[in-house]
């Protein structure tokens, strides 16, 4: 069964970009407004899932040659190691720090170590969610046939 999905494909091309941008916005704005690592990650994952649903797995994997498995592992590694790092500065496990800096373009900006931790969480979320969906569809290609 072949469905004519030209409209879907065309729309998705644009929409995915918007969703990805939005996800990064959500991730960065999480410190002061709704958003953050989880939500940013989830939205980004849903963008990828949308791509995989619209096009087939092979096409997308060619275009985005990222191993989502490794991505989730790297995410966990980042969040755990950013949690461990403070020990070496004599701070308790999982201490977070923040400070205000004057950056050339952005002006007075707040930089926080939470962002590293949250980035790890976000990567984990993206990696795992996409990986689950991919595994299922891949598995079926292999075993069902």
């Amino acid at each position, binding site marked *: 069964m072949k469905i004519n999905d030209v409209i879907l494909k065309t729309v998705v091309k644009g929409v995915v970009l918007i969703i990805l941008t939005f996800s990064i916005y*959500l991730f960065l704005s*999480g*410190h*002061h*407004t*709704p*958003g*953050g*690592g*989880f*939500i940013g990650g*989830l*939205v980004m*994952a*849903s963008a990828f*899932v949308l791509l995989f*649903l619209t096009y087939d797995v092979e096409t997308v994997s060619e275009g985005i040659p990222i191993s989502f*498995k490794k991505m*989730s*592992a790297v*995410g*966990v590694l980042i*969040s*755990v190691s950013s*949690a461990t790092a403070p*020990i*070496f500065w*004599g*701070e*308790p*496990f*999982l201490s*977070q720090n*923040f400070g205000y800096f004057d950056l050339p373009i952005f002006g007075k900006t*707040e930089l*926080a170590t*939470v962002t590293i*931790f*949250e980035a*790890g*969480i976000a990567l*984990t*979320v993206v*990696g*795992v*969610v996409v*990986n*689950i*969906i991919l*595994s*299922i*569809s*891949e*598995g*079926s290609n292999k*075993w*069902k046939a």
Partner: protein
Amino acid sequence: MLLFYILFPLFVALGITIVSSKIRREFLGWIAFSVPVVLFALFARHIPTISSSEAIRTTFSWIPSYGIDLTFLLDGLSLIFVLLITGVGALVILYSIYYLSSKDSFAHFYTYLLLFMTAMLGVVLSDNIIVLYVFWEFTSISSFLLIAFWFHRKNSRNGAIKSLLITMSGGFTMLAGFLMLHVMTDSFSLRVILAELPQLTDHTLFYPAMALLLIGAFTKSAQFPFHIWLPDAMEAPTPVSAYLHSATMVKAGIYLIARFTPGFGGDVYWFWVITCVGLVTLFWGSFNAVRQNDLKALLAFSTISQLGLIMTLLGIGSAGINPAIGEAKGLYTFALFTALFHLVNHSTFKGSLFMVVGIVDHQVGTRDLRRLGGLMRFLPFTFLLAMIGSFAMAGLPFFNGFLSKEMFLTAVLSIGDLPIYGGAQVGWLLVLVAWLASVFTFVYSMILVFRTFTGRPIVDEEYKVPQEASLGMLIPPGILGVLAIGLFFFPNLLSDYLLKPAVEVLVEDGAALAPKIYAWHGFNTELFLTLGIITLGIVAYLLLRKWRPYYQYIPSNWTFNTLFRSTLSGYERLGERVTMRYMNGNLPSYFLYIFSFFIIVMWTTWWIVGPINVTFDSPSSMTVYEGLLAVVMAAAAIAILFAHSRLTAILLNGVLGFSIAIFFVFFRAPDLALTQLVIEAVTTILFLVCFNYLPEWKVEKLSITKKVRNGLIAIAGGLTVTIVGLAVNNYTKFESISSFYENSYELAGGRNIVNAILGDFRAFDTMLEGLVLFIAGIGVFTLIRMRQKKGAEPRENQ
């Protein structure tokens, strides 16, 4: 700084796993070899500082709110151990590079070995008892991994499990003991605990804590009757046996007892329990070593026996802490000193003997005494090394074992002069046991060297003609052999720099009271005892064929091994019988138990507590939309029950999810609303993708009674939850803690309180949540890929 020393092997181990596939395997060995060498040099640099009785301390906070800090302390006692760990470690790794065969995974081996090194360094350097416990269990785990290194052998797996069960249960009892110590002294720091313990002898927990601690130490150091795991642990590759099961890990128990001597020493039970357990172990180990046919089993029992010897000395020495001892204090400090001296000696000669046996096994292909003999002509250097090791172990002159054996006899003789504890009455009996054990020690030392290397050469067709081992395998035992001889001639060098500072840690003025070691101290009782050992030992060895067969009259099923096995299988059977009563394999039944239990517990509680206040008061107002939404949700939920196709059911579930998202908006939870929306979408997609491969659901054919029963439980469950909710809703007995989080901008620099909680205040939850998600991802991935592995060759039960 000490933390970096400890973690250094771990980092290298991580590095090894990463680069293992890229570089040549021998290289991994050399990388691993560099670790203990560097550490040995770094620790050795501290010898001058430590020998002037100072200590090096570093602190990192770990869980400050519970007072658990990573405090590390390098003092005289720790220094001996760290030098042993890194020194013997270096030699063992060098040896293993040549010992392992091309079939073995170098990466795994060195990763585990370095993991062990970190753990062991942690044990002897921690000042915090909880940290010490964590490292302690890590040594058990890495020992487990190393014993099961050849995991395709059934014996290896069994030996690994046995050692894990015994040492871990010992570890748990020790943890309980530690917690009691914490209750007694309100501190986790060893220093504080040791300083306060002598004043707390009347505390109710004093003896329970001591007993639990001793069990932990005895299991780790393979003391009678927990020694049964050590012979089975010999299934590990020989370098591992030499390192973990003779030189370092089994000495962790000794370390623990030595460490706690200033606290518990001076107590009569501490003295007698350790001395007696040590002596029994000493005797039982050497008695059993004689009957072994496997060279490694012989060495295992010999290790048990030697550990018993050190234990005995620690027991005797603890009398020196008692203030009532008076003038005789020096005599008992002498025992502690000897314990440490023999600890070092044992590591040198036993390490070299294990390596020698490894060479024999490696070059000949067997280590069964019945199939060995006359190897002297094929392996001349190995023979020389075996002789050095065995003679040192037997306590013959010109080897370090002679010195410590003589001093041991002095110490045991001194029990008879003990002014307290009533030692004078039973002193002669202990001397007799120690003397007999020494005779057996002499006999098995001779068996080890002469049955293997002299006599008629047995060259079967099936064996290759043995050749001398490569230089790389001879150098490490060679170094240890040279040390064994060198320590005989220059024992006071070791004593001044390492032993005296360590004794100073154990006893006040220990360094001043410590003796100067002499090889010759005139014609005294000890010398005659030694001569007796040698004479009787030689006679016994020559007449071995006459009396060794009598061993078979010892009933073979009356051992602790049998007890251990039957206890284990008994537990398994009991557990199975109990479990099978209610575990019928039917998931709905389990849910039935769970929910019925929940309902019964709640209603019984209410029945006991009395009427509870259920009100329908609602502080917040309700708009029409919210009411409608609630009705929609209720309707959707109930409709799921009657859905005829799974697609309908999923869509209804989606309705629920999205409605909740809208509720989150109403209830001022923007973050939740966002998350819920996305998650609901992804979940629905997930369901739909999976539905491709799942059957259409059929209408359930349940009997009416079952339907009614399920319905009743469901309604009762819902009712219970509602009542709990209503009762709790208006219950404000204490202030909410949430106002604290409203400082999030000052404390965490974020204006979004929810995210500040997630990322900062309660980041631990978030981190673990990431892990849970990751584990679920791995789970999904493996479930799908599992099929591929099915065709793989089974490697079990070879």
